[in-house]
């Protein structure tokens, strides 16, 4: 409970004694490049293979002749939009972006760079953490959209190349009973997960004490806690919104 209180106080501190707006613009753009652009490679790889594997495994489980193979497309679409793109991608990004945030802030803490900012009269929490959270809130939904497209395309490639179904059957499957709210649900999830990953990781890094070993521990804790928070939030959002 003490840690949770400290976490809430840190979030409040982000919005007190803020610096000039133009300072944040530059920092947010820099963070967007780090969070978004530098994550594209892993997003492409993970998403394409997730879609491909989903298509292959769904095809493998379709043993009844009464179920049309176009269902593979429908299942890949729904699993991708509802769960795989926002949740699995966020867990992957918790490992990449979360550990990066915790490691960066932890290193700044133990090398007294955060103290240097404070001595200058700069709100270090706001200056360092707010741009990271903002960048994650901007970039995560974009990455999830890219992930969704690539996952469905991965399913298409795997399904058609293995001969499980034809191109027309897959396209028919992904267009069947499409609910646009699912897209909104995925985007809401991505925003919530972005906030959780960035703020939890920032909290772990910002309050690092000790040396290099503790920075590593902070990064590990940040990833673990972010993943747990994602799974809790995932369940809660599914219960509330679906």
């Amino acid at each position, binding site marked *: 409970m003490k840690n949770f209180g400290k976490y809430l106080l840190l979030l409040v501190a982000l919005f007190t004694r803020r610096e000039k707006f133009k300072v944040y613009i530059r920092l947010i753009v820099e963070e967007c490049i780090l969070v978004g652009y530098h994550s594209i490679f892993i997003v492409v790889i993970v998403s394409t293979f997730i879609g491909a594997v989903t298509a292959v495994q769904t095809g493998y489980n379709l043993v009844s002749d009464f179920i049309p193979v176009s269902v593979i497309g429908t299942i890949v679409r729904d699993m991708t939009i509802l769960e795989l793109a926002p949740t699995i991608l966020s867990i992957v990004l918790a490992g990449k972006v979360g550990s990066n945030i915790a490691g960066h802030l932890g290193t700044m803490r133990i090398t007294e760079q955060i103290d240097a900012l404070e*001595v200058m009269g700069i709100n270090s929490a706001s200056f360092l953490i707010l741009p990271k959270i903002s960048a994650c809130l901007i970039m995560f939904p974009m990455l999830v959209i890219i992930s969704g497209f690539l996952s469905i395309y991965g399913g298409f490639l795997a399904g058609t190349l293995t001969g499980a179904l034809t191109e027309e059957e897959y396209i028919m499957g992904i267009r069947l009973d499409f609910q646009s709210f699912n897209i909104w649900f995925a985007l809401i999830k991505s925003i919530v997960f972005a906030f959780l990953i960035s703020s939890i990781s920032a909290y772990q890094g910002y309050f690092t004490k000790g040396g290099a070993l503790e920075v590593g521990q902070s990064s590990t804790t940040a990833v673990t806690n972010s993943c747990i928070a994602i799974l809790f939030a995932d369940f809660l959002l599914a219960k509330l919104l679906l």
Partner: protein
Amino acid sequence: MIEFNNLNKTFENKNVLIDVSGKFTKGKCNLIIGASGTGKSVLLKTLVGLIQPDTGNILYDGRDFTKADTVLKQDIRREIGMLFQGSALFDSKTVEENVMFPLDMLTQMSKSEKQDRVNYCLQRVGLENASKLMPSQISGGMQKRVGIARAIVNNSKYLYCDEPNSGLDPQTSIRIDNLINDITHEYNITTVVVTHDMNSVLEIGEYVIFMFKGEKVWEGSKKDILDTKVKSLQDFLFANKLIREMKDHQ
């Protein structure tokens, strides 16, 4: 002038500062000395506001820093420059960007004015040719000098230095000491240096306070420190066998 009265600080039932008072005057190099773990760095961090004292007050030219509201505290902090033990340079910025950082954040100066000021400060610490290098590309002594340049770039009224000579060879240490001393007198600022380096004490210690087990047990200048009768200070000063023999020989 920096004045602090009856400062007390406890960490987990351990008294780290016990009723510490003192006065650091303008235009002088004021030193806080003592063995490791005696509360020097805690006192320094308390004075700059990184640690909140349990009791006592700190006055910056009469302005109470401990009771100041957020705005006044921020104003006072913006008059403080600090050189950290590990230099605390921002590792993602070049030397020039590090020195320019306080000007970018705290002033309304134009780009050319900022550039002129940065060039002047880098020249003042003898690093005009290192402006485009990253902190990881320069030596420890150079990093300290960049730290000094960053600390004075905003025309700071108070300069704090936390163990400026740690990890440096004797010659570089003396160079850093002399730089701090020159800057103090040139700009008439209040400088506070935390050190356990006896060379620094004898080189620049115009006013020295000695900390022992969280208490201030001695104060004076470099002229009278060697004649002290305080046992703990004698033990600190003459810990080296050679110096002890030289003292006995005298």
